[in-house]
């Protein structure tokens, strides 16, 4: 699905990430962890083509990101669900339309998927807030909406950056279950989080691998969690 080969990245100063090789196989479930500022968000952005590596090769669905046109990237994004750390919405459209946005943007009929949309909104507990505008949501509600938007197209890959940073424990378990379900349907999942208890809880449901960024490298974290 997504392959990083000897990838390095720098925002202009020193290298933030060096010589990183990661392969997200189809149907795999990964956590990405590491201290604040280590580069979790940066690595995720490399994985969905929002940043181009300063060295090495990133392949998404087999295609080298550096060879892509902007419209190619747009088409790839339709097969990926991304949850940003700072959730971004169209503030002038109600939550329900924001969640359905991937459908409209790719020219599909949002009406046809209405049943799915309703189910999903119910699962993340936003049914009552469906017609609210994003600025009228609470922090946790926004995060749930972002996750719902990421999975509405049932994409091949879900990349989620701190999807549970602002929700309480019960809700974080619900959101995790949603991602586990998708994984069981064969989708690839990568979750960046600093919350080790979330990772521990997930291990009960799913065979997850934990990647840890430290000192500009990615290591496979062991049983020390």
């Amino acid at each position, binding site marked *: 699905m997504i392959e990083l080969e000897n990838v390095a990245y720098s925002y202009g100063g020193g290298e933030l990430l060096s010589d990183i090789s990661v392969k997200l196989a189809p149907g795999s479930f990964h956590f990405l962890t590491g201290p604040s500022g280590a580069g979790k968000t940066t690595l995720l952005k490399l994985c969905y083509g929002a940043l181009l590596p300063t060295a090495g090769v990133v392949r998404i669905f087999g295609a080298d990101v550096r060879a892509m046109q902007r*419209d190619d990237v747009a088409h790839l*994004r339709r097969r990926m669900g991304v949850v940003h750390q700072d959730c*971004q*919405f169209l503030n002038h459209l109600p939550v329900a339309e924001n969640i359905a946005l*991937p459908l409209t*943007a*790719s020219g599909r009929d949002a009406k046809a998927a209405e049943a799915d949309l309703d189910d999903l909104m119910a699962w993340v507990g936003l049914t009552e807030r469906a017609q609210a505008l994003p600025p009228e949501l609470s922090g946790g509600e926004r995060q749930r909406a972002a996750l719902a938007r990421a999975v509405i197209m049932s994409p091949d890959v879900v990349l989620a950056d701190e999807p549970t940073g602002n929700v309480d424990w019960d809700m974080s378990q619900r959101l995790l279950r949603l991602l586990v379900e998708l994984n069981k349907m064969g989708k690839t999942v990568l979750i960046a989080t600093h919350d080790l208890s979330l990772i521990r809880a997930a291990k009960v449901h799913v065979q997850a691998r934990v990647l840890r960024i430290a000192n500009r490298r990615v290591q496979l974290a062991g049983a020390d969690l």
Partner: protein
Amino acid sequence: MNLGLGNLGALAAGDTQADRVVPRTGFTAQLTLFAAATMAFLAVFTLALSLASGRLAARWGDELARSSTIRIVAPQDQRAAQTEAALRLLETTRGVQSARALTDAEQQALLAPWLGPDLALDALPVPRLIEVIEAPDGFDATGLRLRLQAEVPGAVLDDHTRWRAPLVQAAHRLRALGWLSTLLIALTMGAMVTLAAHAALAANAQVIAVLRLVGATDTYIARAFVRRFTLRALGGAAIGTALGMAAMLALPRASDAGSVLTGIGFQGWHWAIPLLVPLLAAIVAFAATGAAARRTLRELA
């Protein structure tokens, strides 16, 4: 991105979904409408000015600039002979299309304002007048004067061109100024719409980021903005044109005497020309916003 002029039609057809993803951006929208309306209003006036001064230049040029007068001031008994001599001379002058002596009745009409209508011209040593119509290239006034001096001592060439040419030239210059202003106004409108579109796009960086995140192509994003701004410019320009034409109709009608100053207005089919203004505004806005969108999307990449 595929945003050629051919898409202008497809644009009008519309896509309600794509429309919704771009926020209304209240004040930038009003600014665009307002700028387009103002510019269209001005365009209507400068167009009217150009057309009116074009008419003026044409009229003066045709009727007046090409005629001169020769006055035969001679004792009563030599007048007829000298007139004959002058007419013969004019026949062989390059650049003279035709020449004829005025009849007594015509001269009387000309002099009436000064001398009253009851003059018996035969009895008076009033000069005979010859009207000379120039060929399009005109004649060499100095050369003609010299030849007349030699052959027809009593002839005086009164060259209207000397009087009229600056007026005609001024009218031409005014017309050129009018067209130049129209062009400048079009450019100004283009610049304003471009800046407004840029401002709107820059203010909507987050909207663009979200749309990209969910897999919208740049064409889709650009089209939403371009459509919005083109329609706004069209609407604004239509309002401005309507107001401009209404103001034009409300202007005091041209009296004959003051026509140089108040004759600004449309005549006949010229009334159709200002109707092109909104169309041109839409095309300018379409091109300007398209360029702005392409640039912003490239920068935000």
